[in-house]
């Protein structure tokens, strides 16, 4: 794949890549811009190579995720990769339209799988590739994440109704 084709491919996925970078950076826009810049640099310098063109989105998402983790660590915002994180007590009032705040209440891996599947219309298999985990593990994160997010949405909506 030559430079022009690569440029075209990146341009095609640019908006979604930025949104994913933002999600990987805990919705920090400035950090997301830095991450995306670094990702493009890595790709155009040939440090990251695409083997299968049909997996372009998975490939870009994967580079973004790992670059974001590095950036977060460098910024002192340590990213925990623990699998069995539990939701913090959901006693504080959360705005039911503050979608980002609700998603942030999920453990990181669950957030990522859920966002990839529901927001970016990817399959669980593709999200497993991005996270470099087995399909079975990705499915577990998906199921748990879905269940917890449903609970969180219901609680937020109940709080909103009671508050009115």
């Amino acid at each position: 794949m030559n430079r022009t084709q690569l440029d075209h491919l990146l341009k095609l996925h640019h908006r979604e890549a930025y949104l994913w970078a933002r999600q990987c950076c805990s919705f920090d826009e400035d950090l997301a811009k830095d991450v995306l810049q670094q990702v493009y640099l890595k790709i155009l310098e040939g440090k990251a190579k695409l083997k299968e063109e049909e997996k372009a989105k998975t490939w870009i998402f994967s580079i973004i995720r790992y670059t974001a983790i590095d950036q977060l660590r460098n910024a002192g915002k340590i990213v925990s990769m623990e699998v069995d994180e539990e939701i913090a007590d959901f006693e504080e009032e959360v705005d039911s339209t503050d979608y980002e705040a609700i998603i942030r209440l999920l453990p990181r891996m669950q957030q990522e799988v859920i966002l990839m599947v529901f927001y970016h219309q990817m399959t669980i298999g593709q999200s497993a590739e991005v996270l470099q985990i087995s399909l079975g593990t990705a499915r577990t994160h998906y199921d748990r994440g879905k269940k917890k997010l449903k609970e969180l949405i219901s609680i937020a909506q109940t709080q909103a109704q009671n508050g009115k």
Partner: protein
Amino acid sequence: MENNDQLNRFFEEMKAKDEGLSVPPFPTQKPKKLNAWIPIGIAASLTLIGIAVWFEKPVPDPPAEVIIITLQQGENQQQEITIEESTYLETWESPTSSLLTEY
């Protein structure tokens, strides 16, 4: 069959909200036309240096020696002029400098 209506609605609303986000423009490559100016610039600089060297006025060589002309009083109370040649001037001292201090 999964019932994901609640989640689908949640993410549709989230996406609608994100429509308002300002996405940074895709970084465009700067045209490489600038590179073509580099050899032109070098050629122009060399030409200018050549012209400057060509028209440069020859600088006369500095005299190898310094000529010191001294007016001093001779034995018969007459003024005498002595001419000395020296390679440097720094150590030269006026032979009449003592007169200045005496006055």
